């Protein structure tokens, strides 16, 4: 569950960063990092 949500968080973070016109490698990385945190937090809230 952790892995799956970390994965979807990163994927979603990258897409959102791109949609926000924040396309530099640093910004995409930060988007992925934000998504990773969101994914892990989400997973922590779920029944495993």
């Amino acid at each position: 569950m952790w892995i799956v949500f970390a994965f979807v968080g990163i994927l979603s973070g990258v897409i959102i960063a791109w949609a926000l016109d924040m396309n530099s490698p640093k910004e995409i990385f930060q988007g992925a990092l934000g998504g990773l945190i969101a994914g892990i937090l989400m997973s922590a809230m779920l029944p495993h």
Partner: protein
Amino acid sequence: MEYLGYINLGIFLALMLSTLFGYIRTPVQTVLVISTILCLIVGAIFKYAAYGIDAVLLMPNEFLGGIILHPITALLTGLFLAGGLKASGGFDALKVLLRFLRRSPIGLVGTLVILINLPVISSLPCGRILAAALLPLLFTFGFEGGLGILTKSQLIVLIGAFTRNAMGSCGPSPIGGVGQIAEGFLGSFFATASDGILRAPQAFSLMLGTAVVALFLKLISQKIYPNDVSLREAPDAMAAQKFAEPEIKAPIEGYLALVIFVISLLTAIFQPLGKMPVQSVLVAGALLMVIVCRIRLNDLLEGIILLPVTAMAAGFLAAGALAATDGFKALGQILNSLVGVQFLGVAGMLAIFVQFQTILPLSCARILTAALVPVLYLFGPAQFDFLNWSQLAIVMAAYIINATTSCGPSPLGGGGMMGEGTMRAETGFIKGAYTFASMAIMAPMAAIFMKFLNLSIFQPSDPRFLQDIKMIAAFAILIAGVNILLLVAGSKLFNKESPNNYYIQVFGFLLGGSISGAILAFAVFEIDAVKIAQGAVGGFIAAALIGFMVPRSLSKRMTSTLSGPEL
């Protein structure tokens, strides 16, 4: 008697569609109560003629028995606690934490990604709670809000994606969420379903769907409706100028309330003190807030938003009346007859059924969920036997995420209108993005997640339920990738203010819907070419019903709605 169910179902659908298209300008709850009364009157006449007065006297018991109190009380206590959070300055404390995050290594974009996904992480019983608290904060990121950090286009994407996430977060909420209605039914077979069998599939698909909504708003909505958002860009001279960020301060009570809120939520979810009703945990948390944060009972009561509560109660009443007067039996028979249509079959019928609430989006998903989940349940071993229990759980996962996100695009006071208001957009601006993501991304992805991961968690003793994380990742990339390609290709084909843009968008919906139906059929029936093709046809039909309901132009539509005579 055989016509009674069809007549009442006709009354219900006619009233719902009339409300949706603006022919009836009354709150949807009132319309549902009228529908309940009409169905009961018609039912009483038929039952009196067929069985006498005794059958009529039994009707009140039958229809009141349809009201399920658990989600209503859980929602009320959830809102109660959120009221305490608001009154004590808890949302201000949250804003301070977000500002701290923005200055950390994850930067602005990482903070925005977390902010956009905050509703689903906190999973409150109604997305409107967090939306009401944080939308004004998001607005400040633009030129008109004072910070000037984001451009108009970026602000539209941020507000639209956040609102999308918020208006789906009530589904996986463990404190009176929409999904709990369906989890109750799945509890007939999966012993621990009420622990949240539908939560993870919803959360997973909502996170991915939110990202695609962001992209849709950037690539499609802003091109198809170029003049329908009245937010202003910063003038060139001011764009380079740095604005001073307003200082946000939160009282100590706010931080304490936030801590109590998080502890209450975690206790309600994980039950570390042993099994107890979520309502008890939340009321205890609220009382603790009263004592520690010195807030008043009135502050807690102010947090209660009546719309979702009354919507749920009215939905249960309408559902109870339909159940007592054979309305659901008639709906079941109609859907049963669709199964007999060769090019649809069970897979095609399910592909349409799963999208039903996005086709008919009402102000609160609970209204139709309360009415239609019992029908979906009957497709399983309980009556029609189209599906076994695991297949029913897969379809339920797809249905619930589609249903729970349906308040977003609803023009009947749906939650998405809060986002449209904040971005100064005409009503309907976000409808295409929201409905496309629910239909093409979220429904199939929830089904895949349930099939390849969640069933094995909730029924670990059954070797048929496999954990296949690679398969979920592959499908996530496939579904997101295909739809992103569709969006990029569609945006390249758009011409400025051309009427063809609308038809290009509808074509994209039809393609996305067909793929979604095919994937749902695969998740339910595995590799069966006929069923996958039937699923694709069902998805195509559902997509046509959704795609053509997306407004072609907004300003004219709003004008005609406001001026009235055409209606």
